[in-house]
């Protein structure tokens, strides 16, 4: 997987949403286009970017070319989940400091 193209591929909200959908299972272009209210050519362009980045693969099934997420893309999504955890952890570590300061204030007021 090319890291540079993976990052630019993940930088677009529609492509992240497509990946999120594919995380639930294989889908055709038509199935992907429906919830996004986008034209099939437009979805196809996004799929091309994701495929070049190694985040999805496509197989041939008659006239259809269903897409599936690759294992490396699942790793990327796990990393996003890790980042959410990190953002929340950073917030709550700050909150620990705020609560300690509130406690000091309260003691000062009492004494």
């Amino acid at each position, binding site marked *: 997987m090319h890291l540079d193209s993976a990052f630019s591929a993940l930088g677009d*909200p529609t492509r992240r949403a497509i990946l*999120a959908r594919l995380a639930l299972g294989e889908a055709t272009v038509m199935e992907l286009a429906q919830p996004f209210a986008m034209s099939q050519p437009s979805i196809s362009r996004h799929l091309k970017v994701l495929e070049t980045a190694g985040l999805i693969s496509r197989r041939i099934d008659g006239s259809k070319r269903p897409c599936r997420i690759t294992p490396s893309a699942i790793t990327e999504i796990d990393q996003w989940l890790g980042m959410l955890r990190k953002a929340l952890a950073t917030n709550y*570590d700050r*909150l620990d400091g705020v*609560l*300690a300061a509130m406690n000091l204030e309260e003691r000062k007021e009492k004494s």
Partner: protein
Amino acid sequence: MTKLKLATQGDTDIVVTRRFAAPPEAVYRAHLEPALIQQWMLGPDGWTMPVCINDARPGGAIHYEWSNGEGGGFSITGEFIALEPPHRIVHVERMHLPDPTPDNHVETRFEPDGTGTLMTMRMTLPDTETRAAMLASGFDHGMEAGYVRLEAMIEAVTD
């Protein structure tokens, strides 16, 4: 830090738990008073929260705005549904990116835990797809900083 737990539950929920070394009264206040919220609800380093308006009563409005100091930012709006000091806050919120995201229903509970507090925050999204998109996008905010950090991290691993 291993204090924070974050897990998906059922089809639509994300549950976050965290312990604090302060009683529920204090943790509850720190979730509602703008002067306190602005000190900690900031996300990645370097971000600030220039707008923090909340009308803490059922039906009251919530409006928070964050800035990265370089022209980037985003906001959320929402409404309070229930407030039960010092144990429970229920509200809905949506992000504006700038189009609004589907409503995220959030119930935050503060339970006594020894001399401290066990906080449980349950976020309920309208459906599985929305939750997946939300997780896949890392909540979508402040992600520039996230990208830079993730890139640095992966470069360090692959070098």
